[in-house]
């Protein structure tokens, strides 16, 4: 029997782990958080974890996959450091929004320019990132942040989307819920120190200076890559990152199915 380590117990990680375990592979799931489900557990997380458990998956919760070494994955967790046998490593470590560098935003490095995921945690913990924040992004995280900000007491939210607006309101005009929207636009620079006070928004040839007290980067779903020696797919490293935005169960299943096939093929190559 071959050994596969799945790094990450989010939705697609749980599904691929179950699929592999059902195909007579010895599977260990390594999850950084103390419970299965990932950073933002969906409602089906518990049932997916139970299904994987029934299929025979073994668990390393509160544990992180640190490094890929030949035939093994080094982990560190509440139980200590371990070297798990792994013919194949499946990366299901989830996604994050694009960074400031990835978005090409220059200018001052004042406080208040945050990854959208961090803003989300701040809001959950009672910290208001800005009273008139600017949210960059088109997808689910940006949508959720805007709603969360309005509930939390933000007086105005500026929304900058890369894609054209699907409906209503003109560029830079007031939309619903006090939102100001820029479609087909990018943030070029942020200004202000020690906290951000403004941003330069570009729409084609048109440049607008927007006053804002927080710039929340919630664009894109970029794979989290942090297992040393296994940042990208290779002969014995399989990627399992769902990119649908908003996230859907169907896409997680499709992603996991693809990763399962690739992992089985890689196991075949490794064990022949």
């Amino acid at each position, binding site marked *: 029997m071959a050994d596969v380590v799945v790094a990450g117990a989010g939705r697609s990680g749980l599904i691929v782990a179950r699929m592999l375990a059902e195909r007579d592979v010895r599977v260990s799931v390594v999850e950084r958080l103390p419970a299965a489900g990932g950073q933002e557990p969906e409602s089906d997380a518990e049932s997916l974890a139970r299904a994987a458990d029934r299929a025979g998956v073994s668990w390393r919760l509160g544990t992180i996959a640190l490094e890929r070494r030949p035939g093994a994955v080094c982990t560190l967790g509440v139980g200590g450091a371990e070297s798990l046998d792994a013919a194949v490593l499946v990366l299901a470590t989830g996604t994050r929004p694009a960074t400031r560098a990835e978005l090409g935003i220059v200018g001052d490095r004042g406080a208040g320019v945050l990854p959208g995921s961090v803003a989300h945690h701040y809001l959950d913990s009672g910290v*208001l990132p800005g009273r008139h924040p600017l949210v960059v992004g088109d997808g689910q995280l940006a949508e959720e942040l805007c709603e969360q900000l309005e509930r939390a007491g933000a007086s105005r939210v500026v929304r900058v989307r890369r894609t054209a607006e699907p409906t209503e309101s003109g560029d830079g005009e007031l939309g619903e819920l006090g939102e100001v929207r820029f479609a087909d636009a990018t943030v070029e620079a942020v200004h202000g120190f020690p906290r951000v006070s403004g941003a330069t928004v570009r729409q084609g040839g048109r440049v607008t200076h927007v006053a804002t007290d927080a710039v929340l980067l919630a664009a894109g779903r970029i794979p989290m890559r942090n297992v040393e020696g296994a940042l990208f797919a290779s002969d014995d490293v399989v990627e399992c990152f769902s990119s649908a935005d908003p996230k859907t169960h169907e896409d997680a299943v499709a992603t996991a199915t693809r990763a399962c096939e690739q992992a089985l093929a890689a196991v075949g190559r490794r064990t022949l």
Partner: protein
Amino acid sequence: MRSHHADTAVPTAVESPDVVIVGAGVVGTSTAMALSQLDVDVVVIERRQDVGDEASRANSGITNSGWSPAPGSLESDLCLRSDGRWEALSERLGVRFRRVGCTVLALDEEEAALIPAMAERCETVGVEAQILKGDALAEVAPHASADAVLGLHIPAEGVVDSVRLSVAYAELAETNGVRFRLGEAVVDGVRQNGRITEIVTTRGRYRPKFVVNAAGVGADAVSEALGGEDFDVVARRGQWTLLDREFGKQVPSILTGVPGPLGHGPMVIPTAHGSVLVGPDAEDLPDKRDRATTTEGIADVLGRCRRLMPGLDLSFAIKTFAGLRPHSDPTYRVGWSESASNLLMAAGIRSTGVSSSPAMGEHLRDLLVAAGLPGSARPAARTSLDYERPLWWDLDGARVATDPLGRTVICACEKVTAADVHQALRPPLAATTIGGVARRTHATWGRCQGSACLSGVAFVTSLYADRPAWETPMNEPGSTIGVGETHG
């Protein structure tokens, strides 16, 4: 000249240390560490909230082996004296260091004509160097442009984690009794008979026997406030791009161009931690706080570095940032002041502050002792830091972690544990800001730029301060993580 006068109440407390060091960058902290080996009373005054938080936090990290400063100069001498010591020093202080080597690339015949003189200079100061071309050049610098017609390879050149270096110097100094006064600025000085008799700061008054001006980009203002010489320090901004460790596998050594009238120009530098720094450009700015990046500046640096390394892959870029170097003419003003007899200058150190820091602290200490500072050793002075090293020091070190916090990874990209973060927030030299935690541990500095761990680091940091979580500062006062509490 700027004035430093703050509208604070007249402070009443007066202290009389043997030495006041103004500035806690790499120069001030290395001096503090050297003095902490002596049985003397030392106070370090720093206007920022943390040590190593200006020029010392955004530089190349290169440890110049001593080949580029003018032979015979003090700068050259201190670099040469420092160079052989990095291995032992980095081990004692828990600061990463690698001797990666550097190759100066001549991209045309005109530049190639300048290489022999540089090789001669290396020989003069006793730094090993080889003139290489063709296959031999490609062997030592496989990542270098095939257009390079000639190269000068200097195998001893190294790179150090220069951000942590200042912190480590200061941690050891504080362990040995040096008092750090952070967030405190020099406002005024009193002089009598050509000596500084009193220093007034935003929080207190000091009557030291000796004063060291190591205030970096603020050294001219400090000199003016204390009645020292009149000179200008220009903030020379350099823009940088940091690339992922994964790309670092393709960058075994430093690549630089042939120095022109404006210096070396941008370089491709493997960092001590295996990532890659690309930069800097050089632009003198009127505003000494301007650390903004520009689209043009970043593009220019990358364009010039592509000439050195065509394989430079921007998809690995993690972040862009800018740093300020203190430039003055003449540069490297190190020695006794001409205006105040107990004022020791260590100013205008633009280029080799990190490189010469191991010897710089001792050089200044020796000058002070020669001028009458008691030179007897401090009883039981420590010479190394003994707390547990961050996990990134060695992944295999994870095996020995017994503390559950030491088994809980907070920053997955940089492999920083909860124990590392808590250590950063405790003495010696406890961090009080998120940036301070990052400088000590690298947490939030990896490829995801804190998207997974910044909130955790922020909340742990907030636990150590008696204030609401939203007021937790990134760095300077006002750089709070939020603007208030949420409704309900």
